[in-house]
């Protein structure tokens, strides 16, 4: 089912906290409240914030730390107001020491707390990669199962905001190749609101990617949060002719491409991966078995990408279901440039996805 009717993406999504809207608390009720649940108008950013408020209020072991999460209100304003509500011990501003505060999260998790560590962007997370890879993902196995690292590491990923090559990359596929961590990427308001809770409860480290272009995504959510899982992919739009596999920032583009194709009587099914590790092969293969054609949308570089991994799995598990070569629509193999037109050209766009779909459908019509 498409959720696009309730979403809009503000293209000029601002980075700074000062532009963040306040959480909207009014519930807009439908005509017959007995049948329709009360809803609230919100954004991806506010949904993430509400998710934090919920886990912080529910579990005293949870605390948030990272650069400018407190007084500044969060680099992307996700944590705005949490310092005032939960205090300095639980909303901890850190020095610019990605490795130390990520490792400190690991140590605190080993001791039984449930830290949420915010790293400003995935590019900066490379400064903490030693801790994420060599400790968080590894300690359980290397200790023969004695140690558990129940922490959540959140970071922003993705391009689309003219932030150039050191703030815009999509490296979540790298993380998705590491055994020992779960990697999740909310693309909808419901997931922005719902995925943090189960991530905090996971006994293993979870890396949660927030797409920078989605923070201002707005729409409505039920006042009472919907429980979501961090296990499965979701079919966001049903279709019969071709499967689009996308996640995070790519989902909206895939849905837009499906709209374009609908006008041409091509029915595209759109899968939102949601969980990048472990991949939900069953949902992917079931869809491919229905449609027999695939376009994979990935804002990361094509070489060695998650799109490459998914392609390989489809070939391994559903080769004889395919009626056309797998298509991949990925970022151009270039550091993300600053200029708007170049950045747009470097990224997958809805028209690129639609063109790939037309090739696939035409290839073996």
């Amino acid at each position, binding site marked *: 089912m498409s959720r696009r009717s309730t979403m809009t993406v503000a293209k000029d999504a601002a980075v700074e906290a000062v532009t963040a809207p306040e959480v909207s608390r009014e519930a807009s009720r439908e005509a017959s409240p007995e049948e329709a649940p009360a809803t609230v108008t919100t954004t991806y950013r506010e949904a993430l914030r509400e998710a934090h408020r919920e886990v912080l209020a529910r579990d005293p072991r949870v*605390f948030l730390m990272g650069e400018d999460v407190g007084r500044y209100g969060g680099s992307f304003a996700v944590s705005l107001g949490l310092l005032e509500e939960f205090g300095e*011990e639980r909303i901890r501003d*850190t*020095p610019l*020491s990605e*490795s*130390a*505060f*990520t*490792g*400190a*999260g*690991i*140590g*605190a*998790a*080993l*001791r*039984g*707390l449930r*830290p949420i560590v915010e790293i400003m962007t995935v590019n900066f997370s490379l400064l903490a990669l*030693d*801790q994420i890879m*060599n*400790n968080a993902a590894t*300690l*359980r*196995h*290397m*200790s*023969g*199962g*004695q*140690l*558990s690292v129940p922490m959540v590491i959140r970071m922003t990923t993705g391009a689309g905001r003219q932030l150039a090559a050191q703030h815009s990359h999509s490296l979540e596929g790298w993380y998705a190749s590491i*055994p*020992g961590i*779960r990697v999740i990427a909310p693309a909808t308001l419901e997931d922005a609101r719902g995925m943090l809770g189960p991530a905090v409860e996971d*006994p*293993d480290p979870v890396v949660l990617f927030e797409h920078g272009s989605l923070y201002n995504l707005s729409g409505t959510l039920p006042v009472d949060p919907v429980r979501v899982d961090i296990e499965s992919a979701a079919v966001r739009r049903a279709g019969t002719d071709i499967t689009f596999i996308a996640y995070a920032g790519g989902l909206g583009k895939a849905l837009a491409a499906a709209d374009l194709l609908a006008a041409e009587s091509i029915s595209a099914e759109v899968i939102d991966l949601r969980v990048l*590790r*472990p*991949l939900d092969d069953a949902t992917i293969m079931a869809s491919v078995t229905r449609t027999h054609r695939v376009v994979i949308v990935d804002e990361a570089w094509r070489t060695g990408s998650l799109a490459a991994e998914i392609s390989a799995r489809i070939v*391994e598990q559903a080769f004889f279901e395919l009626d056309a070569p797998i298509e991949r629509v990925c970022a151009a193999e270039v550091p993300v440039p600053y200029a708007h037109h170049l950045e747009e050209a470097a990224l997958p766009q809805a028209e690129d996805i639609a063109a790939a779909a037309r090739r696939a459908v035409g290839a073996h019509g």
Partner: protein
Amino acid sequence: MTRELFLELFTGLLREMIRIRRFEEKCVELYSATKIRGFLHLCIGEEAVAVGVVGALSEDDAVVSTYREHGHALARGVPMPSIMAEMFGKATGCSGGRGGSMHLFDASRRFYGGNAIVAGGMPVAVGLALADHLSDDRAVTVCLFGDGAFAEGEFHESANLAALWNLPVLFCCENNRYAMGTALAREHASTDLAMRAAAYGMVAWTVDGMDVIAVREATDRALEYVRDSGKPCFLELRTYRFRAHSMYDPDRYRDKSEIATWKKSDPIPALEAKLVSDGLMTPAEVERWRAGVEAEVDAEIAAAVESADAAPLEPVEDLLRHVTTEAADGVALLAGGRST
């Protein structure tokens, strides 16, 4: 302290140093016999640090160590058979055969490993201390590392964070003067490590790391300070490894004369001499006592080797266990020839 208490303390320290020394000498034999493989880093010459620091801790304290950690683990009370079995790669090893010499773990004794990324354990130590701080626990986290780690960014980030947040970490820099093969003066613009640590706003002392009594006294004082103040403290323990960096190291970067000079400060004969000079034992009593201790320790080592030899290997079907808590997935995927 009475004479008997001194005698008990000193012989206790000496016995543990001998235990670690002879254990590692056996490891050399077993490495040559290919029973132990991979990297093997020995602390022979540095036993005063292991015994002086780790032996001073209470049960509630935590230890984060390095890849040169056999002595730290033994001093922490990790059972010798489980350490030996780990080095043999057996299922009964303290890390289930998944860690080896560099990755000894014992969660029940709050021994958090064996980290082989130089300085990689330091942020984790800060986090353990943060959890204790948030829980109003009086435990201290002891973080052992070398002079090489002092050059890593992770040390500087961790030292700053521990001092900034007033966290109960005891940083113990086991300065053996070489980062693998690079001499202290060739890796640090300023070689006074305690002074540099003090610049982070931490109490920092330099200690003779070849004198186990000095190490124990400094550690006791540092632990008391950290427990009372809740703040971190830094000890630079000046020591020396008598053997090469690892079994692969041809040791081309040190003069034989330098090694010979440091061997004159060997912490084991030094403490034996002190027993005599303090009038606690006669030379003949030291000889007899030592022979008795060596016989006991050798029997313990022999039993550890025997049990490690006899111990089972982890079944290869369990290869993918302990990657995440959901072991069943891994086993199923392995059976299907697929990877997650």
